[in-house]
């Protein structure tokens, strides 16, 4: 289904379902992913990781490992003191170099003490992977085992072990131990003015990005120039960060990432694997390939931060919000890699709002970016809370949302366009909401009960700086140079389509050069769902520049080429730009077995003008299915007695499979607000944002019991029903 609110004029290339320009490479095995690269004389590397959640290393004995024939280099905290992120990531400001300089919480690539099961202790490079694995087993580490803490609320208690000397509340950007607080109005006034006040607690689990491609990295030095083949979502940032962390000039670092097997946020910027591989290669004097095992990837990279969310909501008798208060705790692991924010309450129209979030150090695996970093878990909390409030007020949740959802960003700043109401009205109609939603939850007779749930979202679609270069040769080939990588969203194809549209030439005349810092200009990379908006816009501007050249000089002949380039940094004139969406889900719960099956799923999205409907639908469906997995299955479970992760791996995390995945219906409400390339807004992350809450609300509607702890597994459903 594809619908338009205000008709937008059709374009020639953009907006037409287009198979990816590199699809043939992907289905024939010719696409080169990082680990497919083989360099002559290349060594293989493996990492020894801490088996303890918290321990001081007294001594590391590498003598047996060094003596193993074929072992070339071993790095530990004793001979490698590279700081990752040049000084930790206090306040979650991972892009801010100034904060990195002042932070007290430095994360080295090898730390002592080690602070989570999986913290790297040593890295070995050897002639092949089997020798490297054997050498890792031969390293003897004498640990002084320390107390540990896993849950953020426990970590803030006075008697909890201090993971850092300053305590377990992660320091903010000013190096102060303060929670992240946002306020508008005064919630106490709001609650006093309320007729009804409700309170509840929701919790969400640590879930892993679990992209199919485990992290790997290949490093090689030619004199003082480092080349890294690495799966990164942003080559420009990866180069910048790697150069800074290794103390070498940016122009001495080349980052290459051609094809990448997903990431969903855990391949942002540079990773410790990049630094470790670079240092191993430098010390060994040979190219080195570091391969993470699947377990390495689960426990050694990062996942979505687990949260505890306390809500207090005040309303008038007729269901209009007067105050929302959130006190939240986010488990960040022992190093700060992101904000730990809990998003969602901003999307309600409400005069009095207060949000106080404590990002807390724990001895679990580190938390970081994962598809819509702060939203799927935050929306689960607030949207469950509001669904429950609507139920208690005997209101249809669709009516409740229409009455209370955002009309302006933070009730103040207008959006560049606004279609949430349309998303909800159109979706409710197409989904047959009135027919599927049970006014009396859990009222189906018999053990199999059905119910429907809804959730909505708005997701940032900000503009920003990016570059693009287009070169035209005498053969009429347009070569687009963009610093994007292709995480799976289809950036390469999208850039080619935008270029073809802007140049007025067929797509077949356009080639894209991407994923190599020596060949491509700056792009923010594949994070924040902004590649299309930012780099796509730069492509339109580079095309205009090239067209001006052509008008001036005529088409190039012989060896001549014409080059158009642009580095725009557009702004929004005081408005806020967002993608909007609403998801509608019908589930069936077997109350004897505790299983949940999704029967019908409709995702309605306004992502502006859709550049490539084929790839866009894939993105929406994938996000929705991932959201169902987060709602019902996924959990990195830790043993409370010993701090060991128990479910690190695809089976343990219970990812969605072919059999679990329902049909996802997608409806686009297209718009063109005049910004971005042809009105494109964000897509990739937004599709996961409302999915979790919509599924959870549908489960409530089916069984009449509110499930307040993610994931909503069989045992929890049976426990609630017992």
């Amino acid at each position, binding site marked *: 289904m594809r619908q338009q609110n205000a008709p937008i004029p059709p374009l020639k290339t953009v907006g037409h379902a287009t198979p990816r320009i590199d699809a043939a490479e*992907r289905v024939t095995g010719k696409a080169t992913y990082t*680990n497919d690269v083989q360099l002559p004389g290349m060594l293989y590397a493996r990492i020894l990781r801490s088996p303890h959640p918290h321990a001081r290393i007294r001594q590391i004995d590498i003598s047996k490992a060094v003596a*193993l024939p074929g072992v070339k280099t071993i790095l530990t905290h004793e001979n490698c003191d590279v700081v990752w992120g040049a000084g930790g990531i206090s306040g979650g400001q991972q892009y801010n170099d100034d904060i990195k300089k002042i932070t007290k919480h430095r994360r080295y690539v090898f730390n002592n003490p080690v602070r989570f099961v999986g913290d790297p202790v040593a890295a070995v490079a050897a*002639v092949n992977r089997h020798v490297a694995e054997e050498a890792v087993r031969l390293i003897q580490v004498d640990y002084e085992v320390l107390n540990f803490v896993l849950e953020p609320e426990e970590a803030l208690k006075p008697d909890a072990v201090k993971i850092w000397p300053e305590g377990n509340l992660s320091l903010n950007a000013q190096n102060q131990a303060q929670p992240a607080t946002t306020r508008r109005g005064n919630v106490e006034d709001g609650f006093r003015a309320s007729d009804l006040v409700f309170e509840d607690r929701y919790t969400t689990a640590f879930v892993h990005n679990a992209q199919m*491609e485990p992290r790997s990295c290949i490093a090689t030095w030619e004199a003082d120039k480092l080349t890294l083949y690495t799966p990164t979502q942003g080559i420009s940032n990866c180069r910048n960060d790697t150069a800074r962390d290794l103390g070498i000039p940016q122009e001495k670092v080349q980052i290459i990432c051609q094809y990448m097997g997903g990431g969903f946020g855990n391949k942002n910027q540079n990773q410790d694997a990049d630094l470790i591989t670079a240092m191993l290669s430098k010390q060994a004097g040979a190219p080195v390939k570091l391969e993470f095992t699947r377990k390495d990837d689960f426990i050694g990279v990062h996942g979505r931060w687990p949260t505890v969310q306390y809500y207090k909501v005040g309303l008038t008798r007729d269901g209009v919000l007067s105050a929302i208060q959130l006190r939240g705790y986010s488990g960040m692991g022992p190093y700060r890699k992101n904000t730990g924010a809990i998003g969602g309450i901003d999307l309600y129209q409400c005069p009095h709002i207060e949000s106080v979030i404590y990002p807390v150090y724990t001895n679990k695996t580190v938390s970081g970016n994962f598809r819509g970093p702060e939203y799927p878990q935050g929306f689960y909390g607030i949207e469950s809370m509001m669904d429950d409030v609507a139920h208690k007020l005997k209101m249809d949740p669709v009516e409740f949302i229409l009455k209370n959802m955002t009309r302006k960003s933070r009730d103040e700043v207008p959006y560049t366009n606004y279609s949430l109401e349309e998303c909800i009205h159109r979706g409710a109609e197409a989904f047959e909401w009135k027919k599927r939603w049970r006014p009396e939850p859990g009222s189906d007779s018999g053990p199999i009960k059905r119910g429907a749930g809804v959730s909505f979202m708005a997701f940032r679609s900000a503009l920003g700086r990016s570059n693009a270069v287009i070169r035209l040769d005498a053969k009429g080939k347009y070569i687009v140079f963009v610093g994007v990588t292709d995480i*799976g969203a289809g950036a390469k194809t999208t850039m080619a389509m935008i270029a073809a549209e802007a140049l007025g030439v067929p797509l077949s005349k356009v080639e894209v050069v991407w994923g190599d810092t020596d060949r491509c200009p700056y792009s923010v990379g594949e994070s924040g769902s902004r590649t299309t908006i930012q780099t796509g816009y730069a492509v339109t501007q580079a095309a205009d520049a090239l067209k001006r050249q052509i008008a001036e000089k005529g088409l190039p002949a012989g060896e001549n080429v014409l080059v158009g380039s642009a580095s725009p940094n557009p702004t929004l004139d005081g408005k806020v730009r967002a993608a909007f969406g609403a998801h509608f889900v019908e589930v069936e719960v077997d109350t004897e077995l505790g299983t949940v099956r999704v029967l019908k799923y409709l995702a309605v999205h306004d992502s502006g003008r859709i550049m490539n409907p084929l790839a866009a639908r*894939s993105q929406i*469906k994938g996000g929705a299915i991932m959201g169902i997995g987060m709602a019902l299955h996924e959990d990195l479970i830790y043993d409370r007695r010993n701090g060991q992760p128990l479910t690190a791996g695809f089976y343990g995390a219970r990812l969605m499979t*072919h059999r679990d995945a329902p049909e996802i219906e997608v409806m686009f409400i297209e718009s063109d607000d005049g910004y971005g390339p042809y009105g494109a807004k964000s897509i990739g992350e937004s599709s996961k944002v409302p999915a979790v809450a919509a599924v959870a609300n549908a489960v409530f509607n089916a069984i009449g019991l509110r499930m307040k702890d993610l994931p909503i597994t069989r045992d929890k459903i049976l426990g609630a029903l017992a």
Partner: protein
Amino acid sequence: MAKTKIKKKISRRKFLQGTGAAIAVAAAAPTVEAQNPATIPTADAVPKTTIRITVNGTPRRIDVEDRWTLVEVLRDHFGMTGTKIGCDRGECGACTVLLDGKPVYSCSNLAVWADGRSVQTVEGLAQNGRLDPLQQAFIEHDGPQCGFCTSGQLMSAKGLLTRNPHPNANDVRAAMTGNLCRCSNYNHYVEAILAAAKGGSR
């Protein structure tokens, strides 16, 4: 067949144990610096077997270390990197190849077990430069997003259509359950496989 079964009795654990013993004997070099790459005895100390396998129709003969998995030989020694390693422990199906026509996880098969058998990988799907109908359908239905699971999805689908040329959607989902896709493009993969089975595109 009998030969294959004997091979299967050799467990991966046994190989690893054997390797450790061999290395302990050979561990003489005192420091990293003192080693001469030319005299590293590692490779010789590991049990090896000469195997013959047919890969995408081409007979091949290779000396393999007994601990090498099939995917390791395909990727590192034959340079056929279309087959991916997603977990190396039989959980995700990214490494699926056809062994005598049946889909198997090549990370969970030792190379020596493939002795005398026939392997088909994603590189062998296209015939005479023409894409397999499955590959064509995967392109048209936007099956691959990141593409890392795609080779495995293709080989499982090929195995399915070989034994059941006219599956319904549930047959497809059941046959493909061992092939994870974290981009979660399951809908499009199922559509593509059904379209390929019907002999049409969309």
